[in-house]
């Protein structure tokens, strides 16, 4: 079966908010991202699938500027951002939900949310966004004074998403949001991701849980040892034999 439906993508996808063009990222000598091309269109949910250590988190860190690519271009909202510091990217509307949540463990839930708005000064608008987060996660509101490190994994994930939303992002980058969560909770998180997307935020999501990810994404990429080996609409990836075998746990009869 041919790998992708490239011919139909340009017409069907919205204009890109984020675009990688032939991006190569290294850790010292270790060549991790090898000529990656991918994009997230305005208003899309895009997922990046791949096994362990293939470079998913590195892709995320390259978007955020935690690591800088050696060559290629990272473009956001029409501008090249390769050299932009992370803080400036956050200001321009890229916010992360990092792998393993990475809350500030000895700060309270409320303080964690406030840290998410670190780059903003519009106090009144920040309050509005806080209420918006509480509306999405009523459970957070009951635990504002609790130390983040003492929350359950699922609660931490909610706070991590809430913290990212406090930056009022245009692009939300999520690194394995389902990791370590019970199936029921995963479903809840994915519902919330869809709700956030409907409110106008584009979403780039790294996932190993291909089933769930492809069920809410409109487009997807498959990464293998730092190279994009497959891409296409979520539907086409779900139907792809290799994806089914490798990531959906379905064997061909």
């Amino acid at each position, binding site marked *: 079966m041919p790998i992708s439906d490239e011919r139909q993508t340009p017409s069907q996808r919205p204009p890109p908010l984020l675009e990688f063009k032939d991006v190569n990222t290294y850790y010292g000598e270790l060549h991790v991202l090898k000529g990656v091309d991918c994009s997230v269109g305005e208003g899309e949910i895009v997922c990046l699938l791949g096994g362990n250590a293939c470079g998913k988190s590195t892709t995320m860190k390259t978007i955020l500027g935690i690591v800088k690519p050696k060559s290629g271009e990272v473009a956001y909202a029409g501008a090249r951002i390769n050299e932009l510091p992370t*803080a400036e*990217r956050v*200001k321009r509307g890229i916010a992360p939900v990092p792998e393993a949540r990475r809350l500030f463990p*000895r700060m309270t839930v409320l*303080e964690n949310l406030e840290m998410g708005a670190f780059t903003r000064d519009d106090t009144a608008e920040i309050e509005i966004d806080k209420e918006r987060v509480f509306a999405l996660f009523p459970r957070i509101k009951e635990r504002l004074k609790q130390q983040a490190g003492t929350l359950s994994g699922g609660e931490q994930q909610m706070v991590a998403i809430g913290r990212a939303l406090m930056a009022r992002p245009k692009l939300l980058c999520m690194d394995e949001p389902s990791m370590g969560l019970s199936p029921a909770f995963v479903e809840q998180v994915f519902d919330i991701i869809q709700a956030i997307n409907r409110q106008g935020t584009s979403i780039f999501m790294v996932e190993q849980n291909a089933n769930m990810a492809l069920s809410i994404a409109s487009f997807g990429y498959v990464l293998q040892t730092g190279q994009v080996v497959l891409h296409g609409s979520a539907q086409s990836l779900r139907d792809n034999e290799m994806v089914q075998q490798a990531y959906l746990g379905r064997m061909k009869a």
Partner: protein
Amino acid sequence: MSHWDVLLQQVINGVSLGAMYALLALGFTMVYGIIELINFAHFNVFMVGSFIAMWTLEAMGFAGQSHVLYGLPLIGILLAAFAVTMLGSGILGVAIERLALRPLRGVPGTAPMITTIGMSYILYNIVLLGAGADSKNYTNPMPKTAWEFGGVTLRLREVLLWTVALLLMLALNYFVRRTKMGKAMQAMAQDQEAARMVGIDVDRVVIITFFLGSALAGAAGLIFGLYYNYTSYLIGYTAGLRAFTAAVLGGIGNIPGAMLGGIMIGLIESLGGQYIAVRWTDIIIFSLLVLVLVFRPTGLLGRAAPTKS
């Protein structure tokens, strides 16, 4: 003098020393807290601070200890001396960070720490060359006013120094807990990468931390001079090592821990000197350091050390 008077007198002395060690320990602990670096240059930032303060007082027309002030003029002069000293020491700390440590940021291993030892020696030798090896009779405008309570003497200068130290610690506490930049420092201490991800400018936080820590070391340098009435290029090592011990004792990276550790080391020094022997002071203090490191490596108020990959 009764036993109790002796004890109380030594407690007063110990608290004075402890306040100075606490101010000095804060700089070690703050820098370690955010970038996990033991900054040995801090020893001699303290020493340089005591010189900056002395020269500032001299520039304001004071010399030796005979020109004494009272009341508001005294408070005004002290405020000015502390302000200039803290600004100067703070800038020195920032310069060390920019010139010697920033280029090594992210270099694994001991290279940054060794660099701080190098910087410490450079400061030491600059002062030795510039000011000479002799002890300097410190400029001190504080009166010798003292009150007697039974057999216990409480000197005005001690009360003033306690007040200054307390105000500085309260101010630091407010800054770290309540201001946005203080929150950014806490965030960086808890998870540096996550701090970057929420848009904190890490370099700026590091600079502010070095500035504050070094400014407090300068204040401690001035207190040293006012307390002992002398300074010299040598004072950084003894006081610095004791303050470093205080930071480890309280739990390195932990701000209240540094304050507690400082006071404890001050009390051990004065009580040990009284009841055991002055010569034993360092032996007691460093044995305590070893014991803490063996039995409670995270210090009295420290948490389990963050394991970073």
